[in-house]
């Protein structure tokens, strides 16, 4: 019997159930007699949603492409500050700044990662730490006089969607988690495509990937650019939720937290990263009564986790392909190689030309073409 998680529609059904439950959660929380009608709890869920978004965007870089980046807070900060500046100085509505913030963060990522992508593993990690620190220090020192220095930027507007202003935690809940849902669908699709596979090839063996025709540099760059784009958009949501941003929110420890969310939840796994956000943001809130001791227990839990389950709580599941009908369809299958000079193996009979995938793009020169040029 097939495992439950290997069933065809498992991802679709489990995802739909999860988001349906999340959609009902504010209603449940505000009707079970919590203090303040559950506003605090919904606020925590909003934080979890934001970190889930950031975690998912980092997951492209760290989980899928295997690039150790501990500087994700830099892209997040670029997005948040872009929105804050455009909104407070030029009164551009938050919704319009969303893609702009993404683009600025993506362009920044493009510029700063271009020269460092040849670095591997821990070397890359150290450089990304440098990047996030530089961004934080630039923001704090108010270089250029536009970031408000250590005081940050205040009076950022609330987002407005079709004339409907998002103000309360519940409204933000639907905005943030709606964005998470869209992100999950898009990133899931991306994972199950040529692009997602290419990132995995780069992660597993860069040399073999290049040796099989994959432009590894380009894919590493695209992973950073896409991850930064999404982090920049998450920064927009953060800025408009808080109405105020300052460099403290984008410190190095934020980047470490994001790194931990991805690794702890399960690098490369979308449900894993969301679970990671619940655990790293939600659990400390749940154990607030333990006061300072909670962080100690938390650190201990993380250490144990890395020892006993290094692949994360919900590791990636394998992709499924519908290839069963192809098994045994072609001659010379079933593990037996052809006898010498078997005529079955000529190109014409074995792989009929008209059945060959008709990919556009550069093809190897055929012998006829060579003869023409001779």
């Amino acid at each position: 019997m097939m495992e439950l998680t290997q069933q065809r529609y498992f991802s679709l059904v489990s995802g739909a159930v999860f988001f349906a439950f999340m959609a009902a959660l504010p209603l449940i929380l505000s009707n079970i007699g919590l203090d303040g009608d559950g506003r605090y709890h919904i606020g925590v869920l909003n934080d979890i949603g934001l970190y889930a978004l950031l975690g998912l965007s980092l997951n492209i870089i760290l989980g899928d492409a295997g690039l150790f980046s501990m500087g994700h807070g830099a892209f997040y900060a670029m997005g948040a500050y872009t929105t804050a500046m455009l909104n407070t100085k030029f009164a551009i509505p938050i919704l319009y700044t969303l893609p702009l913030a993404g683009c600025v963060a993506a362009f920044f990522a493009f510029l700063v990662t271009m020269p460092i992508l040849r670095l591997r593993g821990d070397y890359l990690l150290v450089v990304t730490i440098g990047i996030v620190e530089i961004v934080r220090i630039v923001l704090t020192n108010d270089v250029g006089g536009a970031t408000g220095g250590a005081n940050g930027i205040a009076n950022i507007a609330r987002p407005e969607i079709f004339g409907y202003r998002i103000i309360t935690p519940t409204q933000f809940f639907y905005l943030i988690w709606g964005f998470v849902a869209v992100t999950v669908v898009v990133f899931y699709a991306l994972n199950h495509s040529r692009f997602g596979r290419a990132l995995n090839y780069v992660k597993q063996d860069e040399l073999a990937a290049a040796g099989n025709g994959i432009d590894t540099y380009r894919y590493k760059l695209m992973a950073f650019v896409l991850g930064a784009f999404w982090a920049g958009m998450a920064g927009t949501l953060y800025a408009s939720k808080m109405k105020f941003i300052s460099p403290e929110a984008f410190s190095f420890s934020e980047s470490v937290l994001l790194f931990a969310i991805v690794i702890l939840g399960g690098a490369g796994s979308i449900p894993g990263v969301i679970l990671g956000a619940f655990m790293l943001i939600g659990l400390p809130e749940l154990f607030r009564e333990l006061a300072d001791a909670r962080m100690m227990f938390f650190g201990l839990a993380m250490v144990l986790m890395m020892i006993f389950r290094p692949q994360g709580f919900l590791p990636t599941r394998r992709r499924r392909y519908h290839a069963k009908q192809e098994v045994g369809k072609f001659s010379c299958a079933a593990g037996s190689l052809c006898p010498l000079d078997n005529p079955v193996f000529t190109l014409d009979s074995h792989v009929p030309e008209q059945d060959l995938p008709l990919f556009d793009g550069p093809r190897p020169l055929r012998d006829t073409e060579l003869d023409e040029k001779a």
Partner: protein
Amino acid sequence: MSTILSLQNLIKTFGGLMAVAGVSFDVEDHSIVGLIGPNGAGKTTVFNLITGNYRPDSGTVIFARRGITNMPTHKIVQLGIARTFQTIRLFQEMSVLENVLSGCHCRMRAGLFASMFHTPGQRKEERLAVQRAMRELAFVGLDEQYTNLAKNLSYGNQRLLEIARALATEPSFLILDEPAGGMNTQETQDLMGLIRAIRSRGITVLLIEHDMHLVMEVCEKLVVLEYGAVIAEGGPEEIKTNPQVIKAYLGAEDD
């Protein structure tokens, strides 16, 4: 017959060691050519120079009348040169099918947006790629194992999977680095059939191999390297009796 690959006076040094010291030879289209020589003669280095993994200090590589010296590896693959590795370099944690799909990658066009939204064109291309990959798996006899993880295959089958992956790039030129390494007699025998079958698909094969039986049976031409230089070139019979080759392999008698 025309020349498909031509190496002209390639030189590559590592520190003080001259690994490839002025190697020149031509490979005819549709032929099977063996590159042999004692350990450390620079055979794999020559392969790495052809495929762009190393850049030569001087000299040129011409493939299908086009200079490919200093071209990045993935571009060379797109032009039609595929390779396997001496030490197996599969994507160990991925399935057999996904390994072969990596070869299809360079013949696919779906970009970031098509991949994000699974456009009809992307779906069709994906379906064709899976079909193409399964064909190559059937060609080497691994189609029934398509869901297995690459690391769970036997050593010999891992070598075959590398060949299937290379073939999925739709090459016109295939470079095999010790394809029979770690194979038993029967597997080696089957491999010889496979190499001939690859050639009969119109693909030129250049291989490094230490199994002399395989080399002498399959190759039409041999190039012998010693200390980074070509010491002999010719058909198997010619090479077998060449005194310089015998000296390189067995050592010179004391005079």
